[in-house]
């Protein structure tokens, strides 16, 4: 992109946002007068695909882009901070590349947000009236924060080179950007939280306490879940970008850089994903405590199948990640020494994956149901939480071991206690595996409350403790280690890059399906138990239909992302490295 000064950049951002908001309000005003009045119960119908599918696609696309522009700044600023403290030019470049990505993605995010802003009040006026009545002030706060965030974002980006001698201040601006992002996230999560687990209103929907309408059961758990998931997703998209750039690179230097960028992004993504099951449970517990009917529906009822789907997809993601790490051994001098361990890691991964995707509710023919009964004597035991948690923790442990092997594969320890260190490593890995398995078996014998509130956290605790112990051990053992050779960045087969793209596509699809589930939990309510959905769409679509919609919007999302990547490359070609003016 052509080099732009800070002032011009800020003006551009301000104009873009104001124009988009202006378009939104003008459309709302005009459509409100041109279109026929809403039906008696407060709906207008979107042509051909219906209002629900239209809003579904637009909202999910907006959420995908929002997740990206809120998630990426977190690690972009972290990278910049590290580059500043370590005076590492490569980290600075990657931080800048991340920033370039999310700054440009803001425009698409805001544009889709504008379409959503027009669509909701036009198609669902009665529901939006209610939302404005209850949470109206948060909407105005949202607009203000959005302006501030965009301005801070543009300033952060366009001042990159100008402030290169004042990195501390620049990192602080990045920190402010993230604070704004978190506030935006909290505001939007309060809307969804209110719709799903409402509070602060009477049974007829009259406002009693605005603060309680904001501070619902779901608010904080959902915000935490989204915050972590945004980082996972944002880093995944950044990894895809790097993979794409790697594949189309024409020089070894570019390939080396994008290989490293892809690796760094993928590790950030998968590293943060380790926290997701825990915060997911927190969200689940809150939903159950709000309404066990909704909890059962989401966990064991109509939506139980989506957990099987989720297991299949997350299993595939972990398999892709491990594959990427195993294939990366090829570029490490000395990496070939570790190939002999890969088959064992693979077998454990495969077994864990098999347990994880074993469904509790199984699709059966009448004949199968007659022979098997309600539950299969073996599969029934693998389909429950005790087995799933154990499998998840073990596969995460394997993934960490794959990462540890990759990191140490080009080094040889020189400390005198290296043999003892290796023995300790085996003890930690074997000990934590046995502990996780034993807790898993014991989980079958206790009540669900003990299983969820006590044993599951202990299982994850054992995992985190063991990886911390391994981290410390490796840091000590490989201090001043003999380096066999530097990693040959860029010497990766192209198929490894498709694995990175595969991870992100899977994440995106999964996010769509989980969104359908979270939204479907409300059943025929706009605001659960308060505002009934009386539109023609007041029924839960089938999983098959949801899968089709999610697939279509995943394709649209990646088409838009492709355009973004292409746009960045085109502008880079036009104006050198482009972007912010030095």
């Amino acid at each position, binding site marked *: 992109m052509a080099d732009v000064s800070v002032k011009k950049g800020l003006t551009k951002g301000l104009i873009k946002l104001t124009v988009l908001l202006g378009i939104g309000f003008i459309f709302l005003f005009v459509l409100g007068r041109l279109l026929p009045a809403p039906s008696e119960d407060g709906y207008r119908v979107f042509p051909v695909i219906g209002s629900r599918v239209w809003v579904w696609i637009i909202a999910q696309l907006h959420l995908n882009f929002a997740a990206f522009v809120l998630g990426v700044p977190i690690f972009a600023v972290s990278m910049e901070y590290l580059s500043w403290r370590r005076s590492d030019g490569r980290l600075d470049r990657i931080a800048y590349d991340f920033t370039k990505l999310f700054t440009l993605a803001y425009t698409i995010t805001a544009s889709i947000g504008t379409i959503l802003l027009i669509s909701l009040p036009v198609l669902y006026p009665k529901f939006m009236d209610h939302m404005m009545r209850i949470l109206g002030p948060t909407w105005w706060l949202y607009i203000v924060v959005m302006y501030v965030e965009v301005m801070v974002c543009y300033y952060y980006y366009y001042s990159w080179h100008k402030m290169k001698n004042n990195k501390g201040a620049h990192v602080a601006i990045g920190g402010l950007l993230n604070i704004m992002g978190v506030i935006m996230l909290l505001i939007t999560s309060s809307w969804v939280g209110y719709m799903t687990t409402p509070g602060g209103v009477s049974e007829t929907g009259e406002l009693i306490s605005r603060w309680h309408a904001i501070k619902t059961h779901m608010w904080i758990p959902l915000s935490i879940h989204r915050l972590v998931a945004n980082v996972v997703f944002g880093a995944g998209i950044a990894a895809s970008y790097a993979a794409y750039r790697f594949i189309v690179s024409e020089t070894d230097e570019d390939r080396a850089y994008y290989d490293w960028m892809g690796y760094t992004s993928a590790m950030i993504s998968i590293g943060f994903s380790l926290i997701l099951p825990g915060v997911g449970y927190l969200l689940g517990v809150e939903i159950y405590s709000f309404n066990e009917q909704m909890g059962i529906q989401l*966990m064991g009822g109509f939506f139980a199948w989506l957990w099987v789907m989720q297991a299949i997809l997350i299993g595939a993601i972990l398999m892709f990640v491990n594959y990427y790490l195993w294939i990366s051994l090829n570029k490490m001098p000395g990496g070939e020494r570790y190939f002999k361990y890969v088959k064992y890691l693979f077998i454990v991964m495969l077994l864990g994956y098999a347990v994880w995707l074993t469904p509790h509710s199984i699709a059966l023919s009448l004949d199968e149901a007659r022979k098997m009964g309600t539950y299969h004597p073996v599969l029934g035991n693998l389909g429950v939480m005790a087995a799933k948690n154990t499998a998840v923790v073990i596969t995460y442990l394997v993934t960490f071991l794959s990462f540890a092997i990759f990191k140490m594969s080009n080094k040889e320890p020189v400390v005198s206690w290296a043999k003892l260190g290796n023995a300790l490593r085996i003890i930690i890995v074997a000990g934590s595996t046995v502990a996780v398995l034993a807790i898993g078996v014991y989980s079958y014998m206790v009540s669900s409350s003990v299983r969820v509130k006590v044993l599951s956290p202990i299982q994850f605790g054992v995992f985190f403790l063991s990886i911390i112990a391994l981290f410390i051990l490796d840091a000590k053992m490989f201090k001043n280690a003999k380096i066999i050779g530097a990693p040959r960045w860029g010497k990766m087969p192209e198929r490894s890059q498709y694995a990175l793209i595969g991870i992100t596509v899977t994440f995106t699809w999964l996010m769509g399906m989980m969104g359908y589930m979270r939204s479907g939990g409300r059943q025929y309510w706009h605001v659960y138990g308060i505002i009934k959905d009386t539109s023609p769409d007041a029924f839960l679509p089938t999983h098959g239909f949801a899968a089709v919609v999610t697939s279509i919007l995943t394709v649209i999302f990646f088409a838009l992302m492709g355009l973004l990547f292409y746009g960045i490359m085109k502008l880079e070609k036009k104006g050198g490295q482009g972007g912010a003016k030095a």
Partner: protein
Amino acid sequence: MLKIYPVIAIIGLVISIGSVIRKSPFFNFTGILVCIYGLLKSAEYVMPALPSQVILMYMAMSFFSFFIYFSIQEETFKAFLEPMRAVFADDNKALLRVLIVFIGLPLFAGYLTYVKVKPTYDPPVSARIVHPEPPSQMDFRGKSVNVLGLENPLRKDAANFAKYVEEGKKIYYQNCFFCHGDDLDGKGHLSQAFNPVPLPFRGTDTIAQLPESFVFWRVSKGWRGLPAGSGPWNSSMPSFEDFLTEEEVWKVIMFIYDSTGNKPRSW
């Protein structure tokens, strides 16, 4: 009678071992998949057969995972692709090319199509919902009951716990045991007359996963109260509100939890 599936598993294993010796990853991959399929199908000789849906999932997972496994190292991946490349490109493989590409694959695709479209008298496979979602409110003999947050009132009277369980036991043997069994394992005298068979209460995956309010709703309303997604055909459970009082339902629930050592889900 020849048990075919263990034979298939052994054939797969032999192919796999042979191809390890001959260093042919492609046939190793094929052998492993054949062996896994044989093993999964062989399960029916020692336990109820694995449902075809589960076998399909395991096979898809194995295919995906082993494929990526064989592509980790460059040489292995090249050797893996070699048989396919040879069939498509080598001049001396023309006959094999005709047999596989122009005859074998179309015939296989035709067979799959035939299997897919051939008329069948079997009812379609149903994605059964084992834990249908309860309503937030129900009526019990005309009395409105909030299922949401509903608690067993008898549990508050801890002093009479044993008495209630004993009374619940009598109710169970007068009403439930014919289907759910003497040992509460779902194997009552009449159980095989139903499809799906009645629920076992033992184990960790049925009532242990459910709050008492859910069980109260299911016992009271039976198949008639199932939501549309679960379909009335997926249960033969009678509506026990027609035969039992509210208190009797709670007592029998206390008995089935107590005698199986399970505890109601509390969140």
